[in-house]
């Protein structure tokens, strides 16, 4: 669907709740309020006939900026919808009941950034289902600072000593 028409229809439908911007001819952005999030995704996917691509998020001091990408393939541009889930306890409605393909990406965002998606059919961590410590969200801004620091420079030497200096741990006949 034509870009100007898409912008017009989104503006008509959601009015004050959205802000539409454009960075370049191929990149269109729609900033939305939290409450219309699912309706917006539904509208773009089902009525405007966009393809669903994926989601991403950026962690900020005040909240998590969640975005989903909807390419319009025939007209060669990308529509990005964005919203802001406020901290503490960022929460958002899940769009995976509308778009099945969003299931895993929402699980990943939950695992990495602790964004709780309400009404998600199966909100488990997707990447590290069994070994993940409880309440560990590796990509969160607050957690990142407490990461294990990068290993020391001389770490390799120590390891070499371990291998060559001392007998190896297992035993081969």
């Amino acid at each position, binding site marked *: 669907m034509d870009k100007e028409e898409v912008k017009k229809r989104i503006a008509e439908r959601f009015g004050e709740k959205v802000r539409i911007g454009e960075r370049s001819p191929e990149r269109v952005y729609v900033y939305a309020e939290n409450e219309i999030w699912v309706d917006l995704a539904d509208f773009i996917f089902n009525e405007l006939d966009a393809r669903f691509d994926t989601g991403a998020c950026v962690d900020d001091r005040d909240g998590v900026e969640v975005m989903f990408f909807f390419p319009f393939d025939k007209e060669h541009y990308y529509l990005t919808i964005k919203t802001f889930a406020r901290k503490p306890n960022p929460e958002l409605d899940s769009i995976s009941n509308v778009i099945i393909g969003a299931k895993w990406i929402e699980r990943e965002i939950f695992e990495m950034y602790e964004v709780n998606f309400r009404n998600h059919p199966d909100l488990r961590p997707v990447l*590290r289902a*069994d*070994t993940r410590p409880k309440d560990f969200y*590796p990509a969160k801004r607050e957690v990142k600072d407490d*990461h*294990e620091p*990068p*290993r020391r420079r001389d770490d*390799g030497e120590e*390891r070499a000593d*371990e*291998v060559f200096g001392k007998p*190896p*741990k*297992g*035993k*081969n*006949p």
Partner: protein
Amino acid sequence: MSITLKALKKSPWVFHVNTGACNNCDIEILDCLTPRFDIERFGIVLVGSIRHADVLLISGPVTKNTLPRLIRLYEQAPKPIKVIVVGACGCSCGIFRDGYNIVGPVDKYLPVDAYVPGCPPKPEAIIAGVVKVLNTLG
């Protein structure tokens, strides 16, 4: 030399395990089996179960998810087993060494007999690594 080792040297059976590598080492290992390199003519066979294996080829840095499986595989292996690490990641974690989900190179957990560095090592290098290990058997 014991009879098992002598038999092992004639036709080592290899089991290959990926502990979180990027596939390239795995493809190069598989490449050794295909017509250009064709290591099966030397009796080296890739087997489907660790219980049949004489050599354990490991590629990739060890991630937290795969570590318990790696240890279990090693425990299930019939001894003596020779462990060969293929690729820079398995030798030293390579570019991923600071990753939060990486627990360390393979030699932190298992005794390693040979390292084949490279990202990825060429099939020739992998074959050379296996041959060198076999030569150490005397």
